[in-house]
């Protein structure tokens, strides 16, 4: 705490405390372990004070005050547990329940819902008010996001995530008073709006009003099908996020236990998307060098974040040539699994079911793209978010913290530290630089950490000195920051050569498919865990991964070869706007 900061003395429930001036009642109460109930409040968002659930009594004030928005003052006397406070909170919850589809047992957010938790806390077992909920169908027209308006409590967290974090504003309030709803412009399905399916709305929704499309049953069906060889790949950021849901510290590294859980679930092989990440670096790194040496389109921009690719296609279609043509690690892995691995294992591609565990809702859309496959099959058949994996693990009754550790299967399970850090903002850039530097200079890179691209800043930049020329790079996360960079690229004034962009805050560790309760503080702990994984691995550069080297020797030839292009590269398309004006 800053010592020069002015302090304020107050009492909460007769307990004297001292907090810095400007603290809100809610945070002041938290310092002494009092959790004032709240719904619209979210620690990473600006204060809304819509729901009034955090109402508290302050001596001398006629009305209750909202603890989320009221700053403490000297001598303030706050009571969070008086009869009037409790009655108010119960009444607010009762009113919400009267306008809520109460099918908790069949709700995707059962036992993980703030409204349900609060009703349980206040012992509200049934609503005393007649239901006024309007029957509205679930909207499940795209492969990533499902909306259920009858579960919306109009807290506005999704609107803030979409507008303030991503700068997209696909969601809005519409109507007024009792008619108010959260919806899209002209009630269009999400995919027909500016939405890029990143799922940040689903991550902050306190109820089941916005959730990921649930594909767990498809995986269970595949696992039961004896004619199918079901393999799974897991993204780097899942292993540092999964533990949250099982009571472990945020950022706990549960790689080995996660592999065991997947084996116990019945997958025939458990592989690592980090292998795909190493492959992406080989292709993307060489693509960058090729562009640099042949007057190609610069700046080159990474293309592994599917939300970001969707954004580019919808919002900056004229700049699509700047995107790297390299597929994402997930899709590269899928392509190799259904060709090289199929050959090795003596299987037909159609017999293999590839499942991906991803921190991301947009990956579901990416896997469904027609260009991500060949000969009538998709590279990746089913994508589950981290949240869906948690469901499956709970379904079979496993406790992640107690499971023995296991290693990934080979040959698509060995990965470098460079692959691991893909999950953090700046990670792809750092991984690429490790390979690009050595390829260009022919020297061994002793210090593999590029500190300039690490950290949680919205936009980071650095200059890398290569023989012959300096390479200027930038790293951005969230699309609000991406837009700033894109405006420059569009005008042709961008000073950069190579740009990494991740759609979600913090990169994949903060993806829209990560466990409910993900906050920026937790994102930072997960990033630290990924760098820890990288630090302790024997191989830290993608091109030094022996399985990658074998793959090129036996199957692909060399980076950017014809076969590599056929399997590991793709193109992107302009997405038309609903209306085109001159």
């Amino acid at each position: 705490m800053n010592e020069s900061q002015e302090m304020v003395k107050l009492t909460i429930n007769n307990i004297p405390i001292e907090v810095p001036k400007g603290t809100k009642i809610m945070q002041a109460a938290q310092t002494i372990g009092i959790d004032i109930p709240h719904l619209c409040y979210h620690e990473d968002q600006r204060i809304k004070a819509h729901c009034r659930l955090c109402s508290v009594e302050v001596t001398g004030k006629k009305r209750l005050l909202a603890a989320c928005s009221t700053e403490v003052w000297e001598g303030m006397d706050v009571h969070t547990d008086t009869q009037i406070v409790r009655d108010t909170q119960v009444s607010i919850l009762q009113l919400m329940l009267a306008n809520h589809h109460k099918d908790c047992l069949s709700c995707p957010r059962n036992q993980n819902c703030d409204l349900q938790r609060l009703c349980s806390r206040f012992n509200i077992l049934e609503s005393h008010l007649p239901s006024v909920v309007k029957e509205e169908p679930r909207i499940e027209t795209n492969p990533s996001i499902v909306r259920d308006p009858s579960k919306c409590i109009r807290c506005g967290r999704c609107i803030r995530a979409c507008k303030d974090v991503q700068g997209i504003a696909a969601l809005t309030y519409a109507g007024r008073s009792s008619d108010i709803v959260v919806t899209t412009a002209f009630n269009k399905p999400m995919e027909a709006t500016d939405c890029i399916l990143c799922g940040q709305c689903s991550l902050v929704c306190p109820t089941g009003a916005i959730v990921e499309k649930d594909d767990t049953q498809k995986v269970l069906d595949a696992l039961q099908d004896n004619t199918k060889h079901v393999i799974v790949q897991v993204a780097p950021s899942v292993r540092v996020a999964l533990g949250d849901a099982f009571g472990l510290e945020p950022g706990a590294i549960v790689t080995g236990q996660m592999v065991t859980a997947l084996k116990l679930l019945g997958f025939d092989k458990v592989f690592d998307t980090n292998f795909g990440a190493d492959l992406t670096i080989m292709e993307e790194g060489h693509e960058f060098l090729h562009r640099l040496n042949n007057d190609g389109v610069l700046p080159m921009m990474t293309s592994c974040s599917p939300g970001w690719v969707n954004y580019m296609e919808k919002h900056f279609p004229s700049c699509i040539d700047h995107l790297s043509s390299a597929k994402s690690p997930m899709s590269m892995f899928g392509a190799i699994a259904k060709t090289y691995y199929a050959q090795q294992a003596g299987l037909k591609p159609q017999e293999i079911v590839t499942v991906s565990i991803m921190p991301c809702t947009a990956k579901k859309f990416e896997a469904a793209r027609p260009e991500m496959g060949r000969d009538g099959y998709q590279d990746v058949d089913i994508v589950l978010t981290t949240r869906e994996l948690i469901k499956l693990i709970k379904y079979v009754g496993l406790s992640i913290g107690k499971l023995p550790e296991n290693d990934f299967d080979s040959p698509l399970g060995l990965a470098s530290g460079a692959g691991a850090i893909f999950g953090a903002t700046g990670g792809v850039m750092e991984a690429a630089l490790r390979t690009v530097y050595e390829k260009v200079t022919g020297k061994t890179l002793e210090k593999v950490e590029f500190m300039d691209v690490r950290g949680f800043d919205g936009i980071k930049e650095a200059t890398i000195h290569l023989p012959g020329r300096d390479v200027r790079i930038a790293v951005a996360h969230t699309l609000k920051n991406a837009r700033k960079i894109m405006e420059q690229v569009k005008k042709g004034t961008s000073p950069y050569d190579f740009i990494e962009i991740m759609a979600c805050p913090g990169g994949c560790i903060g993806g829209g498919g990560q466990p409910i309760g993900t906050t920026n503080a937790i994102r930072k702990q997960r990033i630290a865990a990924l760098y820890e994984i990288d630090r302790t691995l024997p191989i830290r550069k993608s091109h030094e991964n022996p399985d990658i080297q074998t793959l090129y020797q036996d199957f692909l030839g060399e980076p950017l070869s014809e076969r590599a292009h056929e399997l590991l590269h793709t193109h992107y398309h302009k997405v038309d706007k609903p209306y085109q004006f001159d």
Partner: protein
Amino acid sequence: MLTAQTKEYPLSAELQAKIDLVLESHDNDPTQIVGILLEVQDLNERHYVPEPTAYYLADRLGIPVTNVFDCLSFYSELSATPRAKYPIQVCSSPACRVNRIDTERLLNTLQNLLDIKIGEITYDGRFTLERTTCYGACDRAPSVRINGHVYDHLDSIEKIEALLRSLK
């Protein structure tokens, strides 16, 4: 999947020019969106802002179309769906309704003569009945507002009939 159906040139050149004039008179200032929408809505005989027009305004003002839709759905004077040529707005605020005999007669007469209820539209698209909040004509109650104009002292069936007949 993400591709929306692009509609080629959804606004006529004439309408676009009219909208551009409105925007210019508001200095293309997105903070004046409500005033802009009121004027643009009046360019349409059915007194609403169609979807393509809303997208056009968002495009020209550089704001998300959700902002435009939020305003359209928030203010009862604005509409995102077609209304009648003459949307008859009846005030639902207490000050207009304290004289119950007059206000009930107003509403009943309108419903009987037009053969529609609140929220409905006549078969020929000429009239619709809408409830609205106070428009500041309490002293002239009972009254209705039609396309921004207040018709006051409607305290007899004859006056109400005469009003409807006058609206061609």
